């Protein structure tokens, strides 16, 4: 068994700021509705970058295209130097892209450890024959997988809940378990869709540290969708703003914060303040 080390992935594989992902004129249309309209976007390796925008701007749709859950209508998509346009999700996941979901999608009737082990799927051998014969190599892999899963749970701060069913965790812990599950495949980039939604202020504060640790300690690039502006502004190195499916601004948090188009999009006040979405169920405050 070869040693799996840091040099195998993430920003060590690609030098910092090397282009990890490039989307060119990526477009998604649902019937008459253009949810994402010719968006150009790149993810530099080893950074935390954010995608923001009012609700319904097309952020989640954009994530779904990157991860292969949606087949983009048109455009180009390159990840890790490979054309991933329209590739199925499992292929893209195998290339090293991993994600969480806006509405938590854990495997609720499975234990926490098993959830993380599912996230490890692409990195486990688990051959049919060696599984059925319970070969020592197979059992060792399984044991080490469980150990790694526990460490990841510790890493995100939900240790000692391993044997609990994921659906029984408190909301904030479920969010973090989802992050642990996403990290388990040792992705080059992890896409987090509103990880702070529903978290209390202390959990949100801890999330900021967690994202830096994902970048610095695990060497994993982070792409973040978030409504919690304080978190976005303090954690990101670059911010892209979508509105009605179009990219309206891009730059450092400070540049974006002072961009008139952004202020305009976030009807409300000038410093990215209160945003009540059209459904009225999610509120972000600066």
């Amino acid at each position, binding site marked *: 068994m*070869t040693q*799996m*080390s*840091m040099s*195998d*992935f993430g920003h060590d594989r690609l030098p910092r700021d090397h282009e990890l992902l490039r989307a060119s004129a990526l477009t998604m249309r649902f019937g008459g509705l253009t949810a994402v309209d010719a968006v150009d976007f790149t993810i530099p390796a080893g950074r935390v970058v954010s995608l923001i925008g009012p609700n*319904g701007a097309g952020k989640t749709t954009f994530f779904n295209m990157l991860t*292969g*859950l*949606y*087949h983009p209508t048109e455009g180009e998509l390159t990840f*890790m*130097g490979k054309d991933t346009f329209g590739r199925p*999700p*499992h292929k893209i*996941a*195998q*290339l090293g892209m991993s994600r969480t*979901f806006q*509405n938590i*999608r*854990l495997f*609720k*009737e*499975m*234990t926490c450890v*098993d959830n993380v082990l*599912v996230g*490890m*799927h692409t*990195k*486990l051998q*688990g051959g*049919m024959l060696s*599984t059925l014969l319970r070969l020592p190599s197979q059992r060792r892999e399984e044991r*080490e997988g*469980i150990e*790694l899963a526990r*460490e*990841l749970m510790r890493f995100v*701060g939900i*240790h*000692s*809940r*391993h*044997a609990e069913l994921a659906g029984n965790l408190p*909301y*904030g812990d479920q969010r973090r378990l989802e992050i642990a599950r996403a990290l388990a495949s040792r992705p080059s980039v992890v896409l987090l869709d509103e990880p702070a939604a*529903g*978290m*209390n*202020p*202390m959990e949100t*504060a*801890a999330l*900021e*540290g967690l994202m830096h640790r994902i970048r*610095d*300690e695990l060497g994993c690039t982070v792409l973040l969708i978030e409504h919690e502006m304080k978190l976005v502004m303090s954690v990101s190195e670059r911010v892209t703003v979508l509105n009605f499916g179009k990219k309206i601004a891009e730059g450092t948090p400070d540049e974006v914060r002072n961009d008139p188009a952004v202020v305009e999009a976030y009807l409300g006040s000038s410093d990215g303040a209160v945003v009540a979405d059209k459904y009225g*169920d999610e509120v972000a405050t600066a």
Partner: protein
Amino acid sequence: MAAAASTSPYVPALAGPASASAPKAVPSVRDLLGRWAPLMVLLVALAFPMIEQSLGLGMMNPMLRILTSVMLALGLNIVVGFAGLLDLGYVAFWAIGAYCVAWLASGHFTEVTIHVGSGIMNTIPGIHLSIWLIFPIAAVVTALFGVLLGAPTLRLRGDYLAIVTLGFGEIIPNIFRNGDDIAGHNWTNGTAGISGLDAPNLGGAPTDQMLGMGWGTWGPLNLWPWYYLALGLCLVCYYVSVTMQWSKLGRAWMAIREDETAASAMGIHCVNAKLWAYGIGAALGGMAGVFHGARIGSVFPSSFMFYISISVLCMVIIGGMGNVWGAIAGAFVIEGLNFWLLPSLTAWGQALGLDIDFSSWNMLIFGVLLVVMMLYRPQGFIPSKSRKLTFADGDDGGGGSPPPDAYPAGMQGPDGDAAHGMHAPLEVGHEAHATAAQAGLAPAHEPTTLGAPVHPGPAIAAHQVHHEAPRAAPAQPQPQPQPEPQPHAHAQPTAPAQPTRRFTSRFAQGSNPFDRPLPQRRDIDPEGAPA
């Protein structure tokens, strides 16, 4: 799940390796039961023929039928219970297995004379293979048919999947029924079926068989060898089930069952995983079919009715979907109804002057049983789908929901109420979902913003019903556990600092989870990636 040794879920982990030296909690009854029950069941099963004979119960024939059902239930449990693919045509694989043995161990194909370890005179025409060869052959053949019949259904979910599999379950026996003239050849002998199957042979001399003695004799008068063969097959099915359950593939099945979209985003090739489930499930059903055919000595298309598919599904559901022991228990309950309760009821009724044949009511009774189970115990007899995890460092995994007050004081959120405001919508949605599922409905629509390309349709009621006790009602303020203070995270002055630092420091020192020697990277070809 064992009771956590401590009241606080944090204690075992904070103590880290030190907790290994802490006194172990006395194992609970449930623990002991979990550990020893399988062995006890095996011992009883091994001794059953002797017990049966000494008590003169006359239970051997019913028991063989029950064990056949156990094999079928374990096989279907892989498809329905593990992978969540509602299969209403499972009887097809039972039929294919039975026809495999009918073709390979009888004089049906008189044109040829092939003998391999048949133990009978090798001038008798027909294909006569040893049953030990037929089992693996039939397993492969049925697995292939499982994949073949599964392939067209891969994109279907819920009702549609059920209907298509139901169709296959009807088509296959009909092909056997009408297979007496396909391409000018009599393949299946039509409704008359194939009879005169060879008795399995364990090497006894033919004369021994004539005398009805010894292990070489597998006749209606000597059921012991049949019994142990059935028991061995059940053990094979059990082994395959439990081995697969906690493997990479088994977890992939369960992930697909829970949320196919999320599973594919985790890198699971859902098509492959489902085909494996169909294949392995079908292979187990096929082996049950071989046993059944050999045991009865003849195979008729009329014995592979839709009714069988349904009763095996009942076994899986009432036992607890996805639970291996549940499927076994379900087989005993359903067949117990058939072979013991209903005939007994009939006999008691007759003793009271009632002329009612309760045995003919079995479908009605299954139906009522199923409805009652769905209403009062949707998770089945044995609901636990989680496994007990024990770790080298003595951490028992913190199983079970800790009571809300288990969290150390001072770790509560500063504004529990505000937090609860945010949780409320989730709770409501959760409950609504469970209720809809209980009523046999699927949620009409998953939230669109999340954007699954395909929405999980209604699978089967029991599958969708979530755990019995959802989290605490929003009305009761529940302290939220705070994230463990991390070296890089914001300082949390309220948290106990001393033990935590020791625990998290391994990350600060650069020992991170990704440095593990664990999995190999075989999926990204290094050449393809930019250096």
